[in-house]
Each structure stands twice: as C-alpha cells, then as structure tokens.
C-alpha cells in the first residue's frame, strides 16, 4: 500500500473518531452537555489522538529503521569475494539499491511483471540496458550477486512495507476502539487530551537536543571511520594538505586552520573598529532620530545573504584588489581570490553583528556611571574611554568572540573569495583556503563517501564544530555574567 494512502486512511479514521467520540460522550450524558466532565470536543479529540498518535509514531520509527535493517541483512548476503576490484561494500550497496529501484520502476511501468523479476538472471538479460530504458542509468553492467541482492532487497522492502501497513492500521483501530470504549460522561477527557498535547510539546522541545545529538553522532561516527583509514596524528600535526583521489593523500588540518584564522583575523580587524565605533557613536552621541534611521540601515548588511557577499568578493573586491596590488599595481597579488579579499568582505558582513551586539552592551552600562564621570568634569569621550568601555569590556569581548565564531564558520565568502590552495603563508595577498571551504570541496566532488578524502570532511566538520561551540559557549557565558552584573 503506498504511503500516502496509509496516511490518509489513518487521518480519515481519526476524523471519524472525533465525531463518534463526541457523539458518544453527548449520548451518555443524555444530550445534556452540562453533565459531561469536559467539553464535548475533548472527547472527540481524545479518540482522534488515540487513533492517530501511536499509529504515526510506529510508522515513523518503522520508516527510519527498515532501510537500516534491510541494508544490514543484504550486506551480509553479498560475499566478500564478489566485490569487484577496488570497490567497497558501500559502493556495491548503492548499486544494489539503484538496481532495486530500477526494478521497482520497471514493474510499475509494466515493463516487467513480478514473476519475471523473480526469474531474471544477470547472465541472460542485459539488465543495464533494460533499466536504462525506464530511466535508471547504471554505471556498469550488473553482476549476478548484485542482481540477486537487489531482488532480495526489493522483496524484503516490500514485505516490510506490508507488515508496516498492517501494524499501523491495527494500531490505529485499537487506539480508536479503546478510546471510544472509555468514552462516557464521567471520563476526564480534557485531562487526557491535555496530557497528550503536553507530551507533544515536550517532544517538540527535545528536537533541539535531537538535532545536536544528530550533529554530534554523524560527525563522530564518520570521524572515527576517517581515523581508521588515516592516522589522527597526521591529521592534527601534519603540515601538508594534498588530497589525491588515487590514494596516498596528505590530509593535515593545520594549513586549513591557518587560512581560517588568518581570514577571520582580517575580518575582525575590519569589523571590530568600524562596528565598535559605530555602536559608540550611535549609543552615546547620536540623537534618537539619527539612531532610528542609521541603525536599521547598518543592520541591512546583516540581512544580506552570504552568497551575495561571496559574489561581491569574487567579482568586485577581488578584481579591485588585483588592480591595486596585482601585476599592474604593486605586484603583491597573483589572483583575485586571496586571504585579503575574503577577509575584507567578511569584515563588512560582520560590522552590523559587532555593532548591534556592542550597542546592546554599551546601553546596559548604567547611566549613573556616566553621570558620575560627567559630574567630575569629564568630557564625553573621556567618559566613554575611561568609564563606559572598561565597564562594558567583558560584554564587548563576548561580542567579538561571537563574531569570531561567525567568521570561522562562514562558508560562502571563503569558498568564492579565498581560493583553493592550502598553504601556510604570512602573505595576505596569497590564496589560501579554510576548513569550511574544504568541507565543501571534499564532499561535493565525485569522491566515494567511504574514501578518506571524503571522510576527512567530517573530521574537519568536527574540528569546526568543536572550535565554534567552545567559542560560543564561552562568549555566551561572558555576556550572561556581564548582564547579571548590571541587572
């Protein structure tokens, strides 16, 4: 049974349950709704939820678990000696899934019947050509074991789907019947429904934790896999980044980290003075009118997507810098993509980030401190430099750390503006690359996902995640402590 039919049937059952539950409640109360414990629609909702929630819950878990179970059972079927030279199990498995999918489509279109599929043999039929006809292109001819595995895959999947349909429908009916049977005038339907809704609310709130868990697990498993293929020592302490898809790559994180930090540093050198001075002017000098116009204008910079900054770096700032510092100018620069290009543009992006955070923090400094300083005859700038800024310093440091973490995690600007060469150099006019840029390039190529060259992206992602997480947690901690101080 196709999935959407199953969903529709359960939904319909719930809808029917709503009205029947409501009707039954009213009926047991003899039509006098004042005799009911709860409002009538709560009885309906109780039946509807009882039918729907367990059924959909099982369906969701089943849909997630089934491919895993089927995959492991098929993987065990494929004999190791059947693996073609240089191919890994995961590649073969993706072939198996593709063939199975092709067979499904072929059956759906009536090219094959189920019986014909069962009797297909790799050495008799040209499976590749046949599947090509139905729109599933395969990279190579299908060997016997793969076809067998694919047929098995299809069978198990189909059987699983059927059992799931039955289980889901039975559960929905049981839930329906049980809730309906319990419905009477004394039944505390509202409390039950509210407890159910509350459970749903808790589940929604835990999704954030699940997301973090998902991030951590997906990073950890793949990182461990990477370190099995590539020594961790080389990754952390090596100094050369030279992936080669033929094997024997040198994959060290150091040059990438250097590029990341260098670009972030330049970005902060641009963003911190401009952002901080803007914030100081806006919060201490500007009148309310100027503030009302200028602040949103500067914050527009924060609303512009990073792809725009990336394009700006690639097509405008890069060529501009090349004109100034390239062979026609000072001769320091070979190409438009460089640390400087990405750093400058990223700095522009971070200006509103620094300024609005600093603005909040400067405004949190109590007015009494300023009054105290003015009362002693200090000028505004003396008050700002010697009283306001020192008082706001922890908060501003927190803001700068948050900006730094933003810079380190930024992707599009460096992908488009910084270049692709990983090198350890001090020259800001040279092209360098960053952790994020390499995550993109290692995962978007044609590399096999099981190769160290692709898996390294997860180790890089892990590095990035840990660095930004520490920076954020530390910065948030500082900022919170700072706020508490003046509350």
């Amino acid at each position, binding site marked *: 049974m196709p999935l959407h039919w199953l969903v529709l049937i359960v939904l319909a059952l719930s809808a029917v349950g709503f009205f029947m539950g409501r009707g039954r409640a009213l009926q047991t109360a003899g039509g006098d709704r004042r005799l009911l414990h709860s409002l009538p629609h709560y009885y309906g909702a109780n039946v509807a939820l009882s039918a729907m929630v367990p059924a959909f819950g099982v369906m969701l878990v089943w849909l997630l678990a089934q491919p895993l179970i089927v995959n492991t059972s098929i993987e065990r079927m494929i004999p190791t000696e059947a693996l073609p030279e240089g191919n890994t199990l995961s590649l073969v498995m993706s072939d198996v899934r593709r063939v199975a999918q092709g067979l499904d489509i072929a059956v759906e279109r009536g090219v094959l019947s189920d019986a014909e599929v069962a009797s297909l043999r790799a050495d008799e039929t040209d499976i590749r050509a046949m599947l090509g006809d139905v729109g599933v292109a395969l990279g190579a001819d299908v060997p016997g074991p793969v076809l067998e595995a694919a047929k098995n895959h299809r069978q198990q999947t189909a059987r699983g789907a059927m059992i799931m349909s039955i289980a889901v429908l039975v559960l929905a009916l049981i839930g329906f019947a049980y809730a309906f049977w319990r419905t009477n005038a004394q039944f505390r339907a509202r409390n039950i429904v509210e407890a159910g809704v509350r459970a749903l609310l808790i589940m929604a709130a835990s999704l954030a934790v699940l997301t973090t868990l998902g991030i951590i697990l997906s990073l950890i498993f793949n990182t461990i896999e990477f370190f099995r293929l590539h020594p961790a020592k080389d990754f952390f302490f090596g100094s050369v980044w030279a992936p080669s898809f033929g094997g024997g790559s040198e994959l060290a994180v150091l040059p990438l980290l250097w590029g990341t930090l260098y670009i972030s540093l330049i970005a902060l050198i641009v963003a911190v003075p401009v952002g901080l001075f803007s914030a100081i002017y806006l919060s201490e000098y500007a009148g309310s009118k100027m503030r009302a116009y200028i602040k949103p204008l500067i914050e527009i910079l924060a609303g512009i997507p990073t792809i725009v900054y990336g394009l700006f770096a690639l097509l405008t700032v890069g060529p501009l810098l090349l004109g100034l510092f390239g062979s026609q100018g000072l001769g320091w620069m070979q190409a438009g993509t460089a640390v400087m290009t990405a750093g400058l543009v990223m700095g522009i992006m971070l200006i509103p980030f620094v300024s609005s955070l600093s603005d909040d923090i400067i405004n949190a400094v109590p007015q*009494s401190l300023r*009054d*105290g300083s003015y009362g002693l*005859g200090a*000028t505004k700038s003396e008050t700002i430099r010697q*009283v306001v800024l020192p008082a706001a310093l922890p908060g501003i440091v927190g803001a700068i750390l948050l900006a730094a973490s933003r810079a380190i995690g930024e992707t599009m600007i460096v992908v488009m503006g910084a270049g692709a060469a990983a090198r350890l150099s001090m020259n800001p006019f040279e092209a360098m690359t960053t952790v994020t840029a390499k995550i993109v390039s290692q995962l978007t190529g044609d590399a096999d996902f099981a190769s160290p060259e692709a898996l390294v992206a997860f180790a890089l992602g892990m590095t990035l995640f840990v660095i930004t997480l520490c920076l954020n947690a530390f910065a948030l901690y500082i900022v919170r402590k700072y706020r508490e101080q003046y509350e």
Partner: protein
Amino acid sequence: MYDYSTASETALDQKTIKFSARDVQVYYGDNHAIKDVNVDLEDKTVTAFIGPSGCGKSTFLRCLNRMNDTIDICRIEGDIKLDGEDIYDKAIDPVQLRAKVGMVFQKPNPFPKSIYDNVAYGPRIHGLAKSKTDLDEIVEQSLRRAALWDEVKDRLAAPGTGMSGGQQQRLCIARAVATAPEVLLMDEPCSALDPIATAQVEELIDELRKKFSLVIVTHSMQQAARVSQKTAFFHLGNLVEFGETGQIFTNPTDERTESYITGRIG
C-alpha cells in the same frame, strides 16, 4: 512666591555670594519644571534644598553644573552666575565648570575601577597632578577629607565596587573632592544609606563646609536641619521660601512651607 529683595537683605552678611540665579526657568519638553527661581548661594555654607518629590529641587541642582546638558529635551532660561560669570554663556566649557562644581549623586556610583583609580580619575582628566607622587598625595588628601583614608589605605588597589554602601558614597565624595572643586552639589547623598553611614556622611558634610560651598538636596527635613545653614523650600517648581535654616524650620513665612514642615503636604 519668594520675594527676592527681602532675601538679599537677610543674606547680607560677611560671606561672599557663590552662585546667583535670576529668573531661572527649566523645561523638559513641554513640562515647565522650574518656574522663576531667584536665589543666591553663599560660599563656605551648606544650603539645603527641601521639598516634596518632583518639586524641582534636583532639577535645579543639576542646572548649577550643567548636568542637564546631557538630557536632550531639557531647556533652560534665565541667568545662573558663578562668581559673577554666567555659566550658560557660550564661552563656558561645561567640562571646566564641572571641575569647579563637583557633584555627588543619590546612589553611590563608583566606577568599576580600583579605589585609587576612582579618586585619581578627576585629577588625571583635568591634569591636576604633575607627577605620580603628586597624584598619590591628592588621592590621600581626598580620601582623608572624605574620612575614608584609614579604612582603605591598605587596599587602594581593591575595586571600588566591593565596598559597603556608606564607604562607596564617601568614595564618591572623595572622588568629587579630588578635582579641587569650589562648590560641591549633593543630590540626596544619603538616601541609599543606612543610619550609621548617613551619620558619617553628615559629619563629613559639616567638615567639608570649611573648604567648600555645599548644596545638598534632601528628602529628610531632620537632615536639612542638622547639616545646613541655609534652606530653600521648593514646591511645584517654585522656590517658595529661602532663608536661615533655623528660621525656616521654626518660623516659616509661607504657609506652604509650614504645611510641608508639619507634614501636611509632601
């Protein structure tokens, strides 16, 4: 309305006039906060401003060292002269004025710096000390004046925010004294303090009178009676009565003053 001509007669003793205000009006936006205030404040005297909340006494105090400049919507008319110079003249730099007319606020507001740096802040920005020893001396002298030296001399590097409320307020007084002002304005300096700390600060005020002219805004009539020689009673933005403290409290001429002192309004 307080009649100026009689006041100037009673004020005619040996003391010199420090501040003289003529027809002062203060507006906050559309709100007329101070109306036609005329008053002369003497040197080496403690003058108390009393009156119910919102009567304008703090507002008027803040006019005397142009602290109201920092509020955008505040507008001031009339003349306020310090030693015969109009402090609202264009040529006057409020920064220099405030060095001469120090201020202590309602809530102790030490800077988040060390005790030493708090006191040294004023002398540093005004360039009053020629050397480090000079500055040390100013700090010590100011802290002594504020009767704080003995309590803090061993921990000058400790943060000023870590002290008790009374100590903080005396630190703020020391901070104000350190710029060598001629007038010290105090805006309810004891309202955030406990009775013991209040007594210490009041004692200090009496001591400071020898060197400076002091203006103190207070809610407490007892305090005004204890520390001041002159008292001005403000009501709804008007200066109702001004005179010798003893006279104001024993024999007020205006019935509003009497009502306030006896507790019927306020």
